[in-house]
């Protein structure tokens, strides 16, 4: 994979490829691990290779291409490089290369995209090779200096030793010479059983600044002469600006300019953001809302419900046997319809980007989950070529998929372009953020299960109706119109495969795309598919008069990894021993993002509607665990995110626009509502799965199934606030 044949770089192809795809760019991938010409970091220290810079004081600077948004990948990726490098972990620091630098160097840092729980799993191989290659070169440099064979030298914590002569040196002293060496073409990576840095719950590398207020997020960027912009996009998606009365706000304190942004938004630029926002609120804007203004949650629900009808066309995602015949001849049939609403990401830091445009340069500072997509957006929005653009990534105040999109970057550049030479920081208000999201797609699901006379499940028909993310954001990835991602968690094979074997199975998707823009959200399709499937499995178990765990186990014989995490959770929560008086349990499992996860909850219910979540147990098999402390946090965080969406979330549509505008109407769990999550890691090795997202799939069904155990009532619609169910 190191040397792809690079077609001549076609900038246009690059831009389109990056903007639309984020991975698999149209240009070649070249990953040289060093070379004769020494490349220097900004402070003059030599690059041993693109991943490793070593300063004379032995500080090891590890380059990280993926973005840190709280998920801990920055630390995990550094651990992977350091493991192979055999450096002193206490001397490790990290830095982000810019996408502009990467493109100028034939994408030496590979993919920047940080989504789909891919941050570590899809770059672990080449970053470890980067570390190993650097180690070999550093040792060779010492051996050359001592005129001894490299094979006689050893290294530990960045200190190279030649035992026979008793000579020692450090990485910092030989880095300059190492950087001039030709890199080895082949390096052998360590056996995971020999890892000493990977697999440890080391403290994160980015914590200290987050406790003192000194960590810089996009919202904190300060540039000389910078002005601040507040923006209002047409409240109805797809609408346009008809007119605005600038005269009404000229003269307001601090206001510098009112600009149209694209054809759908207006921004006010002022000395401070508060002034800009205050003026924007006073600015009369007339919108051309268009036909979408007629759309409401009711019209969407009706349209989606029609898609549940077998007579309507649908894409088949997973199939075996003859489900319709099996259901028709079954002894018993169970049917249920579920639905899951739009959800905003609601990152704590609202969308923002700072842009500086001059006639020969355009630079952007922002938090982004995909530096290269942001870079491509800057090229397109500025009209400038790649060598005149760059993106400076900063810490993200949350991502969850939202910051993989580039709408806010394009807006910032569009505003800055109208004020050349002046840096513009565009910040969305929370209200703008809530009403202009890229929402968790809306779906409904009708499931039919059929049993033979002995209560064996002989058929399962899973019919989704609703929105496709790829249709909106990556239409090139559709397969003859079908969105393969829609089947995540219920797919036939691959990284999100269904864990149950049913002799007659049909999983299909009637695609219906309302005008509300969808986007990738923590777990997205795995999330609603796991809720539907795992709640329905519970329904089927009860219909068959069987224990929900035992019922599942019988269907999972061909999927031992799915079963292993389910068993781990069952054991930890004590499934086979009765719960304490008044305590009820629910269980769920799913595969997503290459990992196997399961979860169980213990709850109590008061008055049939007040839920206290008392205990959560979660298990995961991601193949390898790079940093167990961070994996534990991702598991717990997935429950907070998933249960917030279950209890408090849900974005509704009225007159074509999103009704929820802030945390008062789109609430989020607090500490008093969240129990401790007991996580069980069972990495089985041999594959690399993701961690940040899969667990969210089991959060809601574990609680919903426990709610049924407690009350005998099925909840098939999210959020619970619409059912008058709340936290106790």
């Amino acid at each position, binding site marked *: 994979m190191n040397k792809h044949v690079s077609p001549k770089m076609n900038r246009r192809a690059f831009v389109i490829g990056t903007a639309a795809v984020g991975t698999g760019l149209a240009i070649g991938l070249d990953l040289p691990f060093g070379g004769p010409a020494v490349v220097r970091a900004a402070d003059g220290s030599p690059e041993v290779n693109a991943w490793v810079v070593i300063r004379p004081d032995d500080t090891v600077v590890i380059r990280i291409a993926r973005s840190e948004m709280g998920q801990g990948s920055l630390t995990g990726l550094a651990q992977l490089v350091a493991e192979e490098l055999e450096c002193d972990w206490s001397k490790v620091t990290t830095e982000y290369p810019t996408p502009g630098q990467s493109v100028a160097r034939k994408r030496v840092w590979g993919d920047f995209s940080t989504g789909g729980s891919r941050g570590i799993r899809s770059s672990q191989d080449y970053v470890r090779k980067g570390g190993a290659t650097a180690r070999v070169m550093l040792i060779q440099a010492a051996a050359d200096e001592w005129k001894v064979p490299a094979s006689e030298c050893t290294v530990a914590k960045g200190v190279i030793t030649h035992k026979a002569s008793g000579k020692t040196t450090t990485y910092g002293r030989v880095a300059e010479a190492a950087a001039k060496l030709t890199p080895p073409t082949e390096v052998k990576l360590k056996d995971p059983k020999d890892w000493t840095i990977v697999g440890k719950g080391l403290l994160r590398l980015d914590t200290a600044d987050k406790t003192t207020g000194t960590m810089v997020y996009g919202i904190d960027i300060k540039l000389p002469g910078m002005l601040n912009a507040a923006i209002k996009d047409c409240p109805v998606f797809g609408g346009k600006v008809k007119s605005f009365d600038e005269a009404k706000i000229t003269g307001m304190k601090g206001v510098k300019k009112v600009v149209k942004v694209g054809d759908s938004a207006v921004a006010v630029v002022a000395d401070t953001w508060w002034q800009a926002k205050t003026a924007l609120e006073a600015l009369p804007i007339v919108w051309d809302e268009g036909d979408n203004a007629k759309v409401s949650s009711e019209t969407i629900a009706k349209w989606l419900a029609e898609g549940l009808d077998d007579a309507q066309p649908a894409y088949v995602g997973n199939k075996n046997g003859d489900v319709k015949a099996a259901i028709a001849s079954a002894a018993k049939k169970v049917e249920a319809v579920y639905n899951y609403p739009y959800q905003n990401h609601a990152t704590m830091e609202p969308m923002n980007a700072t842009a500086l445009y001059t006639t020969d340069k355009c630079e952007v500072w922002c938090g982004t989950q995909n530096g290269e997509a942001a870079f491509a957006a800057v090229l397109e929005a500025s009209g400038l070529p790649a060598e005149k653009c760059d993106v400076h990534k900063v810490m993200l105040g949350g991502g969850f998929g939202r910051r993989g999109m580039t709408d806010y970057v394009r807006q910032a550049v569009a505003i800055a372009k109208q004020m050349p030479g002046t840096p513009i920081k565009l910040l969305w208000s929370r209200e703008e953020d809530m009403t202009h999201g890229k929402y968790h797609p809306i779906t409904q699901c009708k499931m039919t299960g059929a049993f033979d006379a002995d209560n064996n499940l002989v058929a399962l028909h899973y019919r989704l109706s609703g929105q496709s993310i790829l249709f909106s954001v990556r239409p090139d990835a559709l397969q003859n119109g079908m969105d393969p991602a829609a089947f995540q968690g219920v797919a036939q094979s691959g990284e999100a495969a269904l864990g149950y074997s049913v002799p007659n199975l049909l999983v299909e998707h009637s695609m219906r795309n309302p005008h509300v823009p969808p986007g990738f959200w923590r777990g997205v399709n795995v999330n609603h598919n796991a809720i539907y499937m795992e709640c329905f499995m519970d329904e089927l178990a009860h219909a068959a008069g069987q224990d929900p765990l035992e019922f599942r186990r019988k269907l999972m014989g061909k999927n031992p990894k799915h079963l292993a995490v389910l068993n781990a959770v069952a054991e930890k929560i004590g499934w086979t021993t009765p719960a304490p008086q008044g305590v009820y349990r629910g269980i769920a499992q799913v595969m997503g993002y290459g990992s196997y996860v399961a979860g169980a909850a213990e709850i109590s219910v008061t008055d049939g509607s007040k839920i206290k979540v008392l205990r959560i147990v979660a298990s995961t098999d991601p193949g390898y665990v790079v940093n167990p402390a961070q994996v534990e946090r991702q598991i717990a965080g997935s429950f907070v995110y998933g249960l917030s969406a279950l209890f408090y979330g849900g974005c509704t549509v009225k007159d074509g626009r999103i009704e929820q505008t802030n*945390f008062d109407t789109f609430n989020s769990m607090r500490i*008093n509502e969240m129990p401790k999550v007991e996580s069980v890691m069972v990495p089985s090795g041999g594959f690399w799965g993701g961690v940040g997202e899969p667990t969210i799939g089991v959060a809601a069904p574990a609680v919903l199934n426990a709610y049924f155990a407690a009350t005998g009532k099925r909840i098939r619609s999210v959020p619970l606030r619409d059912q008058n169910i709340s936290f106790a």
Partner: protein
Amino acid sequence: MANLTINGKTFTLDVEPDTPLLWAIRENAGLTGTKYGCGIAQCGACTVHMDGVATRSCGISVAEAEGKKITTIEGLASGSTLHKVQQAWIAKDVPQCGYCQSGMIMAVAALLNEKPKPTDADIDEAITNICRCGTFQQVREAIHTIASA
């Protein structure tokens, strides 16, 4: 114009009296450790201490803050010695994205000032900040670690 006392320093700021304290702190005093999350005193990302009391600075006007002693995350440490909450946050690796943590830390510091050994119920009542990453488990553990030190 407003005179604000922030972290022991007096700032004379060119702001309208109805400007939320949050924005005067961030944009006029230039202290960006205090974060904007919602602007309606729901999320707690903007929590500062006003005369020692945890206060959501987005919901307080500059006029109301005048004459009060305001402490932001930047003023929590004593010189180069971090506050015990900051130390515990580092030792327990509490933050994920970290954006809400300035407010979280300020809320916890105020709680511990009032109740040096808070129970879980005390924590549940006093700490109402939103954290979308879901650091609650580490927040609780870190508070108990401080309390038992």
